[in-house]
Structures are given as structure tokens and as C-alpha cells.
């Protein structure tokens, strides 16, 4: 894999880097990570993307990660050497059950084994969980999945790079022969629970333990933090106390409560009915430790995959939740340094992260660090 950075974040710069990648005969597919501040629009970049002779995939994020740097402007273009097949799903919000069958037709059994599936999705689309589930139901855990929600929290606009252009409400899947090891961790610790989600409406938790959800949540959070929801903005207090959905033998899936709907709690991402949840609490050290754990898990996983045959050092692909930056603020650099091992690192701050933890279930995460080590 070769990685190039255009710090200016211009269309010309990206076009130049793309040309280089295309011209590079060792490159099979091209991964693009761009900053929202670049101001890329379909009008500006679609021509470039459509003319690109090799499969293109990637996303526009609020910030991108390049080695130890966190960039607010710029474009990373990475050439993937292993063969790449991309699939674009448009209009995710209108997604139906047909997706499984659609994906089943596009992939073959033998293509998936020990491969890596990059997944970039418009982070503000609805039904991302359904999309992920459909993908998993079709492909299972045959490949490793890594990716995240593209886009900006501040405004909705086209943010998914595909060979068909820069798209909104879309997802791009790129299946590569690249071997990888995946690690997922967040460092959030349970402070209360478990509790049963006794009533839920997709991403709204209506009741916990058969009581109004906010009532239960408020009691706990106010008790632990010593702060009152009456005196502060809901999210300001709630961002420190997300829900953790229990997964068997794996890291809990974090769900941020971001707003109130009466006594219901609106979360980012689906909270399934009857699931067991904890209320989590995050601290700087635990979070950074979480990122470190993700790195460890990825390395461990990668070793199992390559079984010591791969001499070349892997590239680190870091999908970190944008909310972790909001929470850690300046301490985030510490997290980045923890993850950076000296080998090339590229990544982005995402709205929700996608990965399967090791060889286990694929999930759409919040507030989580996902690290993939790519043997490309």
C-alpha cells in the first residue's frame, strides 16, 4: 500500500494523487479519506471519480488521521495492491430486505475467506444497523470488516466516495484480498446495571426495567455524577454516561443518548428490545487504555491471520469515534500516540464505527476505537 497526503485538500491535489495511484501498476484499488473542510461537492469531484480507471472508495470526515497527526483539511489517497471489488448501495434509508439477496448475488464464497471488507457509509443515514446486519447475514464473518460512518455532525451532505461519484445516503463496500487483524475497544466502564430494555422503538429507549427510561437513567446519572439534568443541557451531562449493550464475550456496544423524547432516550444507533444495557462512564485514562487495547487486539488478531508468514510491517487503519475527541479534547493526541506504532497510520474520526471484533460479531459502534492492521 502506498499512502499520499494532499494537505491542501484541493480537488486538483486529489486528482493528482488519484492519477498517481492509477498510474501505479501495483495499485488495484484506491482508498480516499478526505476532510470536510476541503469543501468537496459532487459537482467538483464526480468527474474525477468517474474517470478514475480503478475502483475507488472512501469517505469525507470531519478530521482525518495521518501518522500522529489529526488533520482538519487535506486528502489521503491510499493505493491498495491487492485486488479490490467495490459495491455501492444507494438510498440506504429506503433499504429493504432485498439487500441480503442483492449482496448474495455480488459475492462468492471463496472470495470472502480471510479477506478484508472496507465499509464506508453515510454516518447520518438511518438503518445503518440493518445494513450492517444484512451484510453480515450474507457474508458472515468470512472476511474482516472495518470502516465507519462518514460525514460531518454539523451538516448533511454527500460524503461517500464511490466510482459513481460522491454520494449521500449511500454505502460503499470494498472487498480486498488484503489480510488484516481487527481490534475493537472503547474503555468505557459500566457504573450501573444491567438493565433490561423493556420497551424500545428502533433508536429510542422508552423503558428500562419496565420503568420510564429517562427516570431510571436520571436517577443513576445524577447519583453518580452529582449533577442535575435540571441545571445543565441534557447532552452535556449525558455524553459522559452512554449506554453499553452487552455482547457475549466481547466489548460492549456503546450507544450515546443524545436527546430526550418525553421520558424516552434517543440514542445514536439502534438499541434492541430486550437487550441488556449498562450505564457506562468514561475517563481519560480508561478511554486511552481502551484505544491501546484495541491496538493489542488488532495485533493479536493479525498475528493469527498471517501466522508469522508476513514479514512486512502492517499499516494501521484507525477508525476512531469523533465523540472521543469531543470527550478527550486535547488529550486525544495522547490516544493517537498510543495507537501509532511508527508504521504508517491512516484513519479518520467517524460517526459510528463498523468492525467485527476479532472473529466475532460485526457491529456498528459508538464512542469506540476500531483499529485494523492491514498487510498490504
Amino acid at each position, binding site marked *: 500500500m502506498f499512502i499520499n497526503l494532499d494537505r491542501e485538500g484541493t480537488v486538483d491535489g486529489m486528482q493528482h494523487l488519484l492519477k498517481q495511484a492509477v498510474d501505479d501498476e501495483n495499485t488495484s484499488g484506491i482508498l480516499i479519506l478526505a476532510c470536510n473542510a476541503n469543501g468537496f461537492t459532487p459537482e467538483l469531484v464526480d468527474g474525477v471519480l468517474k474517470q478514475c480507471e480503478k475502483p475507488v472508495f472512501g469517505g469525507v470526515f470531519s478530521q482525518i488521521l495521518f501518522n500522529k497527526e489529526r488533520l482538519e483539511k487535506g486528502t489521503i489517497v491510499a493505493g491498495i495492491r491487492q485486488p479490490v471489488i467495490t459495491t455501492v448501495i444507494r438510498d440506504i434509508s429506503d433499504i429493504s430486505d432485498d439487500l441480503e439477496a442483492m449482496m*448474495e448475488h455480488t459475492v462468492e464464497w471463496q472470495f470472502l475467506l480471510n479477506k478484508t471488507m472496507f465499509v464506508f457509509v453515510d454516518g447520518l443515514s438511518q438503518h445503518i444497523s440493518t445494513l450492517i*446486519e444484512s451484510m453480515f*447475514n450474507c457474508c*458472515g464473518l468470512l472476511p474482516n470488516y472495518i470502516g465507519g460512518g462518514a460525514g460531518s455532525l454539523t451538516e448533511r451532505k454527500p460524503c461517500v466516495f464511490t466510482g459513481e461519484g460522491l454520494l449521500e445516503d449511500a454505502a460503499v463496500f470494498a472487498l480486498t484480498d488484503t489480510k488484516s487483524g481487527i481490534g475493537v475497544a472503547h474503555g468505557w466502564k459500566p457504573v450501573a446495571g444491567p438493565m*433490561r430494555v423493556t420497551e424500545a422503538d428502533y433508536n429510542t429507549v422508552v423503558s428500562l426495567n419496565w420503568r420510564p427510561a429517562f427516570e431510571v437513567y436520571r436517577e443513576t446519572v445524577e447519583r453518580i455524577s452529582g449533577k442535575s439534568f435540571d441545571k445543565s443541557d441534557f447532552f452535556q451531562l449525558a455524553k459522559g454516561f452512554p449506554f453499553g449493550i452487552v455482547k*457475549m*464475550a466481547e466489548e460492549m456496544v456503546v450507544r450515546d443518548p443524545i436527546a430526550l423524547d418525553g421520558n424516552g432516550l434517543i440514542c445514536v444507533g439502534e438499541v434492541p428490545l430486550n437487550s*441488556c444495557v449498562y450505564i457506562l462512564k468514561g475517563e481519560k485514562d480508561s478511554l486511552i487504555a481502551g484505544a491501546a487495547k484495541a491496538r493489542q487486539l488488532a495485533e493479536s488478531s493479525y498475528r493469527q491471520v498471517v501466522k508469522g508468514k508476513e514479514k512486512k510491517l502492517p499499516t494501521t487503519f484507525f477508525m476512531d469515534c469523533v465523540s472521543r475527541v469531543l470527550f478527550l479534547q486535547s488529550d486525544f493526541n495522547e490516544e493517537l500516540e498510543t495507537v501509532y506504532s511508527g508504521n504508517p497510520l491512516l484513519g479518520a474520526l467517524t460517526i459510528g464505527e463498523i468492525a467485527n471484533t476479532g472473529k466475532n*460479531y460485526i457491529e456498528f459502534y459508538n464512542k469506540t476505537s476500531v483499529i485494523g492492521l492491514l498487510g498490504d
Partner: protein
Amino acid sequence: MDNYMMWSPILLELSIAVSGEQELGKLVKKAASAFLRKLNCVHVSVLQDNNGCLEAIYVVPRVTLKNPAYYELIGEFERKLQQEKNKNVIVIEKDVQYYGFPLRNFGLFILGRNVPFQDVFLKELLPVINMLAQNCFAKFDADMKRRAIEAEFQKERHLLREIIDTIPDLIIYKDPKGVYKVANKALGKYLSLLPEEIIGRTDWDIHNKTDASFYRDASQKVIESGSVQRYERLIKCHDGSPVPFETIKVPLYDAEGTCIGTVAVCRDISERVEAYKKIQTEKQWREVLFKNSTNAIVRVDCNYCIEEINNSFSKLFGYKIEKVKGKNLNSVLMGEKCTISRYYTQVLLSGKEITSEGTHYTKEGLPVEVMIRGFPIIIDGELLGAYMVYIDITERKRQEEQLKYLSSHDQLTGFYNRGFLEEEMKRLDTPRQLPLSIVMGDLNSLKLINDVFGHQKGDRLLIRAAEIIRSSCRQEDLIARWGGDEFVILLPQTDIKTAEEISLRIKEKCDSQKDGLAQVSIALGCAAKNSVEKSIWQVLKEAEDRMYSNKLMHAKSYRDTVISSLKVALMEKSMETEEHAERLKEMCRKIGEGMGLSIQQLNTLELLAVLHDIGKVAIEESILMKPGPLTEGEWGKMRKHSEIGYRIAQSAPELSHIAEYILSHHERWDGKGYPQGLKGEEIPLLSRILAVADAFDAMTNDRPYRKAMSREEAIAELKRNAGTQFDPDVIDAACYIMSSARDKGTVLLSRFENRS
């Protein structure tokens, strides 16, 4: 396991995932998904046992189905299931650990996991699997039932669809917003739109603005009122032709009673409209026929009350429809009392045709003879009323009466005719009518009167005789004209004495009528049937015989009377005097004597002298008495008198011997006379003598058209015409007599001269 990992919530979640009210497919999918997520599986399969073969009904990841190794795995499980029937879990180790959980009565549940389950956890998991097995079986069962129901429902739906598509009427269901939701195939026939093409559209997409707003308003009305709307309207078809449709629009409600739209059934009524037009036309035809029929026609309802009458009815009975509509026909035409009409009404209203004749009454109460025909109006077995047709037969009836009268009566006299009387005789020939008398009468001289004066005179004589007979008989007596001049009077329960009295009355009345030429004289004969044994025909014969006997007895005197009457009449008519007759008689006798005729011839000659011009009684007086010369036509008539005289003479036995002479008395010696143009001695001698005597007397006496000649002149004239007009011998004899008479100065001749 993590510190906070707990089995119980996971098992609970799995339990929830394998339960709940859902279809088999959803259950399986949900269970597979839950096991996959919650137990960190890499593979989950739900397989159904089909006669020992496992068939995958849901597999995650789906792409596994493309892996040939998977089918080997299934085969391996099938074998192991056979071998280890009672095992709760069958484990096969491959690249991952595969756990096969037999789902009792259903199939197999396979979990693939990188990390083996702990035995303790596996033990905890089995109840959940059992629950899944039970639910799968139950759901499968329910699913089968549901599918069967669905299939049935589909079948019914298909059938319903087929049915509504078979219906030729347009069937349309629209929602409350006017959007087409259901339509049948008939739509294609008229609008060229398939049902699927119209679904989802509105009237505004299909029809023009006017039509669309009409349909919207109609639907709105139906929805608001909740009542059925019915209207007829022309719909423009795809070929542009307007087709009349009858539409019935009804509101449609769901189970809660909320209106969910309207259903319209539109029927092509072209044929009906055409038929209606045809009916109207035919009705008009019928109307014209009905109104203007020459027969009086009335239509009544099933209560016999008038509904409609035609012009002829009004004309015949004088009623106007406004005055009689709704009234009972019988009460209008004849009053309620007429039993026979009530009977006919009943017959008619029982559904049978009637034909009868009767007397009905006009508005003014005048009777009208009518022939009545009644036709019940029965439609579909129901009697709706009837038509009554009246034909005015008053005139026919009158003629029939006349015919009937004529068939039994003699037209001239008004008496019964012979045929009728014969029938009556047979009818009355019963013991109850005894004694039964018959009077037979024969009118004398009818033939003479007919011959001489014509049949008109003869008829008058007959009428007079009839009047006499009728006035002489009783009311109950039957009088018939038996033959041309014969009458028979049948007198039931009358003895001979009374019959004779009647005869006498007749005779007396005849005698009392002294009326010149046409005096009525009837010969009468009576007979009576006093016993049953005696034939009535025999009695008739007896009466006839007695009548003839009487006739013979009185014939001569009667004829004399007639002839005398004739003579008198002749005198009166032709201004001939008795003296002329006497002169002529005298002269003829002299000439006859001079010519040596026998006494009988001389008597005949005298009679001829008196009666030779008797035929003149039948000549019109205007010709006889004409002062100037006669025209050719008048002469023709005048010349007839010798033939008439001949017939008169022929009619009386006492005169018949002079008939020939009368006929020839205007013949000339040279054959130029009349009527037969006899010549010379072909002319009877007595006629030749009379001709000379008559000429001489005529010449020597005044005539209306000339003055009398002198004797000498007359003699000279006679002589001059001897051998041409007259017989020379007779002239000689006459001249001799005339001369000798002058010489001898006979009183007679001088008397002659004096008078002339």
C-alpha cells in the same frame, strides 16, 4: 468471560427470540440472528427434515449456501442424526466447531463457532433449543394452515376476480378521494383501459372536466347521504361513440362502519334504450291505431274500470275520457243491473276472451246495438286488464230484422209468406189448437188487372184485398199470402162457424167497396180440423176446393161486373158515347146481315162492335184526348190498344172468342195495318166488317182533331179505300146498305144522320 458477562440475560434474549407470535420464516430468521449475535457464532443454519433429508430454510451467512463444503456438512449431520437419534446435540469439528441441535418434529439447528461452548452453557442452552423446536413445529403447522388459508383466500380472490371480470357490467370501486382501487375487465371493452391501468388514477385523469366533476359530485353525494344513487349517462367510449350507461352507485363501509369509498356498477343500456325507443315507436303506432280505429275501443284495468278510450268510443257512446276515467265500464254503458254483462265481465277478468252482442246505451241514454269483443291483457300470467272492442251493429241488426221479416213475410201485403205459414201449420197442428180452421181466398181478376193496367194496379188491388182481410180477422189469426193471388188464414182454436163468419165479413167488406175497375173480389173457402186424425193439409185442400167452387159460382157475375166497369171506364176516358157503340153495333149488324152472316156471328159482331176499343182503357188519357196530331211515339202507344184489348178479352171466357177480332180490327186489306200486318182474308171477316163500320162512323162524326164528313163523302172515301184499306166485299155490302138505307129511308139510318 468478561466480568460483566451474564448468561441469564443472553438466554433470556435467546428465549424471547425463539418465541412470540410470528411466522415461521420470521421466527427462524430472528432466532438465527439472535444466536449469531448473542453467541458470537460464525454460522447458523435452520434445517427442516423432509423424509430424512435436511433442507436449509435459513442460513447465515447466506453466502455459505454457495460453499460446497456446507452440503457435505449437512450430509454428515444427516448420517449422525440417524445414528444418534436420542442425542441432544451432535458436534462436528471442522475449521470451526459445529453444534447440531435436533429440533424435535421439525429438523436441525446448527451453530458454527470458532470457540467451543462450555458444557455448562450448552446445558443451559438446550431448553431454549427445545423451545425453538416446539415453536418451529407449531409455527410450521400454523404456517401450513396459514398457507392453506392463504391459498384458499387467493383462490377465492381469484374466483371473485374471475367472477367480476366475467360480469359484462363495469364494476368500479373508488376510495373516498375518488381514486380507482378496483375495476373489472369490462372497462377494457368500453374505455380501452386495463384494470391495472386505471387503478390509482382518478376521473380527472380519464374523463373530461365536465364528466369528471359530475362523477365526483355523484360519489360525494353517495358518501354524504349514505344512500344509493342511480343515474343514466352517456359515456364516451374509446372509439368516440357515446354509449348510454345506467349506473348504480353505493357507499362501501368497513367493519367499523366508516365509509371507505363507493362502488359503481355501470350497465350498458344501449339495447334497452333501443328497445325503449322501439317500444315508444310501437306505442305511438298503437296509439294512432287505437285512437283512430273505426271500432270503439276501451281499455279497462283489472277491476273493469276505464283507463283509456278511443275516438270512436267517444263518438259512439258520447263520453269523454275525463268524465269516465276510473269508472266501472258496465255502469257507464249499461248500468249495474245488467246481469249478463256482469257475467261477461267475470269471464273476461278470469282471463278468457269474450264475444257477444248486446244493447248498450249512449250518454244520452239511446240504445246502441253493438258486437262486443273482449281481450284480457295478461302479462307474465298476471291479468292487468282488458281491451273491449265495440262494433256498432245497429244498422246490421236492423237489416237482419228486415231480412228476418222478409224471410217470413210477404213484402207487398205484410202478411206471412207461404213458407212461414207452412211451418206454422206444422207447429200449430196440435190437439191443443183444435178446432183449427183454415180460410183460403183467391183474389179475382188479378191477372186481368195486371195485364190491362200493369202490375202496379194489380199490386194496389192486392194491398186493398190484404187490408180488407186483415181488418176482418182477429189479432191472433195467422194470415199468409199463399200464392200470387191466394191468401190463407189460419185460425187456431176456431170452429168452422167462426171461420165462415170471418169469410162473410171479408165478402161484405169487398162488396161494400165499389171502386170502378179495381173492385176487390175474393173467392173464399173454409174448412176446419176438428179431430186429431185429420191432416191439416187435407183441411187446406178442402178449403181450397170450396174456394174454387165458390169462385166458379160467382165468376161470371164478377166478370160481367168487370167488363161493365171496363166499358164505363173506356167511355169516360175516350169520350166515346154509348150512342157511338150502339151505332156501330147497328151498322155492323146490318153489314153482317147483308153479307149473310149467321145469328151467332152477328151476335159476336155486335159484341165486337161494343168492345173492340176496350184496350184503350190502358192508354194514357193525354194521348186519347190529345187535340192535335199524335207524335210517332204517341202513335206507338196508341197502337198498343188492340193488343191490350186482345188480352182483356182473353181473360174472360165470355169474351175470348172476340179476342182475335179485337186484335185484328186495325189490320188493312193491303197488309199495311197493325199489329200483325195481316192481309186480305187473313184478317178475320168480323174484323174487316168492324173496320169499315168504324171508319164510316168515325168519318161521319166529329173528332177532337177534325169535323165530321158528309155521308156521301164518307161513302166515297170508303170506296176509294176499298181494296187497299178495306175489304172490297165488305165495302160493297156496306155501300149497298148505306145506299138502300138512304133510299128506303130507314128510321135507323136517319136517326144516325140526325145525330151526326
